[in-house]
């Protein structure tokens, strides 16, 4: 027996990337904007979605990713938009093969925007392409201002950063300047928003951005 070296040169995630590619192609043909919301558990992803959906500026559908329960999907369903829940059963992130199945379960007729709410986690979801147009980093003031530099991949890659719980700034001694200067150093091009999901303050600016992306996609 001898040893033979074989070159492979293949992406580890080649199989899943095929699913991401198919999603991107189909959604482009249908002119549907796809956003992948990523943030820690409790960052306010579902609340941000509820506030966004309430404004009814475009027709939305939602893919909810959670380790367990259908609680988020129930909250979204009460906003009267089509929603499908993916339970990853312990998996710390969504993968394109799961999203592809979920999208088939949704009626996408007349839908303008699909929001994918990823599993609450700042690390792993950033590593998996779901066929989205943009990743959106959702981070709350209560998590601390040091998160962008601690989790650089997401903040570097995303199309927008939404800082939630702005009403808590004084209570958690949030260093706002540090947060935004770190975000800027990682990703000067990202659209940047501060919102309070409870009062709805700042939500309109974020919704304007979604509409801007949607118009860009339709023109391309």
């Amino acid at each position: 027996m001898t040893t033979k070296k074989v070159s492979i040169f293949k992406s580890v995630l080649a199989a899943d990337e095929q699913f991401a590619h198919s999603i991107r192609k189909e959604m482009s043909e249908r002119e549907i904007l796809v956003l992948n919301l990523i943030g820690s558990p409790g960052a306010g992803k579902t609340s941000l979605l509820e506030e966004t959906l309430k404004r009814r500026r475009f027709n939305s559908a939602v893919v909810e990713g959670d380790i367990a329960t259908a609680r988020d999907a129930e909250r979204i369903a009460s906003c009267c938009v089509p929603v499908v829940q993916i339970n990853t059963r312990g998996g710390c992130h969504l993968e394109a093969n799961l999203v592809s199945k979920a999208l088939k379960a949704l009626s996408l007729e007349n839908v303008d925007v699909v929001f994918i709410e990823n599993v609450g986690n700042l690390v792993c979801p950033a590593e998996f392409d779901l066929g989205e147009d943009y990743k959106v980093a959702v981070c709350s003031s209560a998590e601390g201002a040091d998160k962008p530099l601690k989790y650089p991949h997401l903040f570097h890659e995303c199309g927008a950063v939404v800082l939630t719980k702005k009403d808590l700034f004084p209570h958690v001694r949030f260093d706002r300047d540090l947060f935004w200067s770190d975000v800027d150093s990682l990703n000067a091009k990202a659209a940047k928003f501060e919102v309070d999901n409870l009062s709805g303050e700042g939500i309109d600016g974020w919704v304007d951005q979604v509409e801007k992306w949607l118009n860009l996609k339709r023109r391309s």
Partner: protein
Amino acid sequence: MHEMSLVEAVFESLLPLCADNGWKRVEKVTLKIGTLRQVIPEALLFCFETAAAGTPLEGAMLDIQEVPIRQKCRHCGLEWGGEIPLGRCTACGSTEVDTISGVELDIESLEVAVDDDEKS
């Protein structure tokens, strides 16, 4: 902890390759992994050993080659490396910056045991 997903993907890719080529024993697997991919090598090794049991990859050495972050400015052409990716060129301040390495997640090569008459 996405290392198990990565290992599963490696096996989904390599096991059919071993079956198709009749490789009964893989001695070494080389992966190229960019710093930005936030992979913990120890976790990857542990998952790999667990998943390899009972397959042609059992006992194979996993060689993880880390690829450092390199970026290049589209405007002035400056190239630089660092621990974290930057959104702005350090020389001219342009935001048109490409990450040219550090995001790899590739199966580079294998070393397989073959009968001498099969070696080509």
